């Protein structure tokens, strides 16, 4: 797939989905679109385009996950000391859930989103996060345990 039209179609088809994924992975709306655009630019900037890439969608998702994780490593200290401002248009329970999700350690949040939003299996998540499958199961379990306190107070 080294066709500019195909790349543009991928952009059109996946833009909204990827921005939403970035928002969930980072726990913040701020910069989600920029992160996804960065990911698109990186994908488009490959010398061979998407030639030889078996699944452009999966490749793009991996690029978005990597971009979000990289960004969060820079932001982690800042976020710890900054209270999040709730979205006034968001229902209270959803705002609480969003806060709880954002307060999870980055890897737990990524594992939860990739499992329960993207419906990925242990193997795929382990490949994206660079860890073992047993670690994925542990991260998901721990993340769910923390979220349970908000969902079932």
């Amino acid at each position: 797939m080294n066709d500019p039209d195909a790349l543009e179609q991928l952009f059109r088809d996946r833009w909204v989905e990827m921005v939403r994924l970035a928002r969930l992975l980072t726990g913040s709306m701020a910069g989600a679109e920029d992160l996804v655009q960065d990911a698109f630019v990186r994908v488009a900037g490959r010398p061979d385009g998407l030639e030889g890439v078996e699944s452009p969608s999966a490749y793009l998702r991996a690029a978005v996950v990597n971009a979000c994780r990289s960004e969060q490593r820079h932001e982690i200290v800042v976020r710890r000391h900054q209270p999040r401002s709730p979205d006034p248009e968001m229902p209270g329970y959803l705002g609480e859930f969003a806060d709880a999700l954002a307060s999870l350690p980055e890897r737990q949040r990524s594992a939860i989103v990739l499992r329960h939003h993207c419906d990925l299996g242990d193997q795929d998540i382990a490949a994206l996060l660079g860890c073992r499958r047993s670690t994925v199961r542990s991260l998901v379990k721990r993340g769910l345990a923390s979220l349970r306190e908000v969902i079932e107070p």
Partner: protein
Amino acid sequence: MTDIEQRVAELLAELADATPVGERSTATARRPSAGEVSDHEKYPVRPLAARRHRHSRRRELIVAGAAVAVILLLVGLLVLVRDDRSPVSVSAATLDVDTAALGSGRMAVVIENDLYVADGPTGAVWKLTDVGKGEEVSNVSFSHDGEWVAFTIHDESGLWVSRWDGTERHRIGRAPTSYTWSPVEDQLAYATQDQVRVARADGSSRALKLSLAPEPDTRIVWSPGGTGVAFVHIGGGTTREALEDTAEPEWGSTYTVPAAEVIAWPSAEVLLVAQVRSGSSRSLSAALMLSVATVELTEFQLGTGGDGEPSVSTANDATASLTPKRDAVDRCDLRTSTCTRIDLPRAFPGPARVVLSPDGQRWAVLGAGSNGTSVLSVLGSGAVGALELGTTGRGTLDGWALEAEPPLWLDNSALVVRVDERSVERIDVVSGARTTLVIGDRFLPPADDYPGGTGLAYWAPR
């Protein structure tokens, strides 16, 4: 899918739908065209950088340099503060530990994300860490003489080593992927993203000169005499697979083997490597026996489609492997490549973990029972059979058997096991007698981030 998983999935979908997406989702978005993508000056990796070009490049560099200097200064101060932090002595009143039941040994256990070490002979209990919420202590193990304990702190702090009483603490590496203590010296080998290093307990370390980088998440094993380490490198995107066997003074010998993981180095002549077959979940479906001197490979089956991780004995030159299934264990003789099925006294509804005793004559299988309980089956010569251990307090043990630490053998007749989210017990496998070693308010087993990662460790003088 459980209720909580279903609810989380619904909330994630709702949160995603509530995410406003800007105009770049339309055809007017600034996106790469065929001409632009090949021009890196016109198309920087980060789009925001394009706007920064309006500013003075020199001014940016000065500001960035100053910021980096300030950050490095703050990080340095933080590291110094953390390194100088004294361990905290903890009494048995605040942490309910039965040190008498430890005998002449020492136990390290993670409770509420922090690491505690209890010493049997002196009755002392030390708290070695004081980590913040969101960080996790894991991958705990003692050096060969029990004098030092190593552990990792996630997600940022890396690998640490201290004496068992919390003194002389050193950070060894920031982002190791795995580590293993030498069997004969107070030094450990650990892997980073592109190196294998050997560190002494005083914090000094050196990188091994290798022709191939270690695989992420690789397991490192020491030779029995502590003169060499082995790990696996897999060529990215190809079928090329190689095994690094390094022994001073000739570090860096490389053998090509069809394997994905090095399991054990039980004798000078034998190294065990294994392969995880695709499509076979959570199980090794084949393994190889390698004579290091001649690179002679023998392939044999460990088991087919087991539900849990296989365990290979390191006793008797690793002549046995066990693969747990829901109602049985496949026991395979690695020299004759023959396997026998041994029925379990209690079937598990989910996956189980199995661990061989030091002499290889008994084995313990930990799994989830049917009513929110965990069940330990101890098999082999004169062993007690099935024991019902405890509950998680949540009515389910989904995944507990895989996430809890495997049972830890104290000797050939007793083991330590984390029975639920509150307590750790010592169990005599012949009489079935049980002693509660530790009671915590509430704790989860630590994440199994590295091969062999655990929040439980025990050492006893030989």
